[in-house]
């Protein structure tokens, strides 16, 4: 019996599900191993009978918690996909602002109709069995995680920073190009894809387990960033994790 798989989304851009939909040929191979019973982005059907739930997006409202808990109840395995779901993502930027202001900015006059609370990753609400980090997720890593789950193996998500992959890929360090990067504290697994393309690591995969944040902030400042900008670099993706630490 093929495991039944469902996709769900919360506050996010649905870009991670799009990555899955864009697997193209590999998606067909994947469908040889699993049966997709719910995937709003590519199909009309829906079923609540599933084994693996992939959840995209952050939890940003109290009432979303019930839906999350229901998914947890239905699924044997819950996988968070994408930064919003795994680490709170850029949604957590709002946690540093006054939430009423945020509501007004987003919804204008009708703000009072829309509830909100601090954005959080889904493991702040329910237990999560596996993570596919990234903004958006990497298709190959998504497949790696699925394969691991099918084999009954804990997915192999690195606990070392992006620098490891960057060095293996023989990139010129972003700092040496006069740019500012949070790769030294960001969890690897993306094969340093952004730096490979000549840009920087923004930190979308979140912090490694034990980052040396002080040293990294010192490095950013030593190379010419203001203290505020250095803090901003950290907040972009690490907002939730930083508050929790």
């Amino acid at each position, binding site marked *: 019996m093929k495991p039944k798989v469902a996709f769900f989304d919360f506050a996010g851009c649905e870009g991670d599900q799009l990555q899955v939909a864009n697997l193209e040929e590999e998606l067909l191979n994947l469908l*040889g191993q699993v049966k997709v019973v719910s995937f709003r982005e590519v199909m009309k059907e829906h079923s609540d009978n599933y084994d693996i739930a992939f959840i995209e997006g952050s939890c940003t409202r109290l009432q979303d918690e019930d839906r999350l808990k229901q998914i947890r109840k239905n699924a044997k395995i819950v996988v968070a996909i994408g930064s919003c779901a795994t680490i709170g993502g850029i949604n957590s930027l709002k946690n540093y602002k006054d939430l009423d202001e945020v509501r007004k900015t987003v919804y204008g006059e009708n703000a009072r109709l829309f509830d909100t609370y601090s954005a959080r990753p889904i493991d702040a609400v329910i237990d999560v069995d596996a993570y596919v980090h990234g903004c958006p997720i990497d298709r190959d890593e998504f497949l790696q995680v699925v394969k691991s789950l099918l*084999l009954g193996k*804990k997915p192999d998500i690195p606990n*070392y920073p992006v620098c490891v992959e960057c060095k293996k890929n023989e990139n*010129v360090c972003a700092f040496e190009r006069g740019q500012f990067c949070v790769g030294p504290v960001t969890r690897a697994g993306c094969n340093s894809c952004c730096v490979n393309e000549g840009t920087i690591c923004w930190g979308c995969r979140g912090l490694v387990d034990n980052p040396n944040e002080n040293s990294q902030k010192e490095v950013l400042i030593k190379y010419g960033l203001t203290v505020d900008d250095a803090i901003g670099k950290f907040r972009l993706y690490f907002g939730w994790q930083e508050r929790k630490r």
Partner: protein
Amino acid sequence: MRIILKEDFAEFVNTLIKNNSLNVIGVKSKGDKFAFGHLESASELRLDYDVTLLPPKKYFFPQRETLVTYNVANGFSAKDPADIKPMVIIGVHPYDIVALLHMDEIFRETKSDPYYFEKRKASIIIGVNIQKMSKWCFAPYMGCAIIDYGYDLMLTDLGNRYAINIGHAKGEELLMKYAKNVTDALARDIQLVGQKKREIMSMAQQKFDFETELIPELLSKSYGESGFWEKHSEKCLACGSCVLVCPTCYCFDVKDNPDLSLEYGERIRTWDGCLLEDFAKIASGENFRPTRPTRYRHRYFKKGKYLFDRFGFISCVGCGRCSSNCLPDIANPVNLFNDMYHETRSMGVQVAPATEPEVDIQTEGNIDYVPKLATIVKKVPMTAKETFFEIKLDDGSDVDHKPGQFVEVSVFGIGEAPISVSSSPTKKGTFELCVRKVGNVTTKLHTLNAGDKVGVRGPFGNGFDAELLKGKDLLFVAGGLGIAPLRSLFNYVLDNREDYGRVILLYGCKEPRELLFGDELLALAKRDDVEFKPTVDWCPENEVWDGNIGVITTLIPQVNFDPETTYAIVCGPTIMYKFVIADLKSRNVPDNHIILSLERRMKCGVGKCGHCQINQIYVCKDGPVFNYSKIKGVPEAL
């Protein structure tokens, strides 16, 4: 020495490139930096570079390399015989050539790494003397800035021409076959090359305040120096950059990569680094080098002391890549060693050069990364966490182990894990494992059943010296799963009972339901030639236990033994050793009568990957069985 005009050299390189049987590699620019890469034309060559981002070791020990492929139906096979084009690597600086010579020795020790040497043998190295020195470079201090060995050809830029030193017949042949207008050097050119070399020796901007031959001894005196390593590593990001760019670093990790059918896959090795947090972490979660200062220190000791003691060289060539890649600027060996030198001096400690170590490197055959296919013939659940497996190699051979050795067990698509053989070598046809469910491999193994296939490599490690123990009284001390490796020796002793004196087994676990090999232990109680005492840390109300209650050390006062004739054989969780050893010592057991079996993250099994290293010792190769007298001074051991 020969001479070739630069335009003729370019022609030579272009001829090599046009020859489809060669893979021509050279130094090219990459942004403002340089990197070795495939050459399309001689015009891409930048022999005036300072340093490349990565050293040329990537061509022999690639960032990612398939070791083994597997097919669930047929088992494991070696990677297809590599279609290796002979490589010509142009523009290697002397320090990187020395680094390759270091790698050669490391990958040759004990057993040769076939994947490294198949590529190494198919390569021709054309070196170039340094024209610009990176500001981080200190190769002159390490004796690696100019060399007269290790290359096939060595170029020196003399303006409109190159002087070529021939290091090896392979280089000369290449030159004769493909280069035009090569002439013998005149006295003037020979003199010029000598002058260039002298200039190189004074190019370094990094300066040591002392003779670098003092490094091994300086390190010896600084291992436990309070605060020193903490101070230097405070800003360490544990990003691994320093070790990943190092030309002499060789640690690796091994992973399985199944394809989507889950039927086929490959086993891959990738670069790893001892600075990374999880490097010495085992499946149970225990991390043997958990802090940044200890990992930071390990790097310097590995380069400056452990490899020196083993091979006789300091495994640093002074390229300066670690320094230049460290964002907080704490990885510069020159700064660290200068500071160490001055601190040591300020404390009045005199440091003399280390005596040349006795280097005795044996090598025999190749490492076999391909597991043998084996079948589970029996599976018996023992406790909630442990399962007993009896396994038979499909080729009908015996695993042929010594008591105390371990095998690497493979599960398709999951990976490999080191597991001690639990049966005595006297048992033929099959062997036994007692496996605790802790990591991916062991968890999956627990779901397999009789008839299912696994892979087996080994046996590995030294094992117990059953000969040495002959005629002695044996005191076995086992904690928890520690009984599993001890059982291989214990059963061997029972099968050769007349060769040994008294046999005492003390065995402790947390609670009665965790007792392993219960039936066998019951049978022991009936024997009059074995003294057996079990204990449990505690007994829950719903369980029955009429034996001792208390940790394992509470059993030691309950047995009488003669410390002069008794050997204690101890295996258990890490925490157990120091207490058991202290109690044995208080009973006057000499240090060399205490034998331990240690657990670490043993990935390759052959002393290469680096994960199981405790100070200078590879547990997988030098252990896992150790005489306490040999490791009591090894700080990371216990």
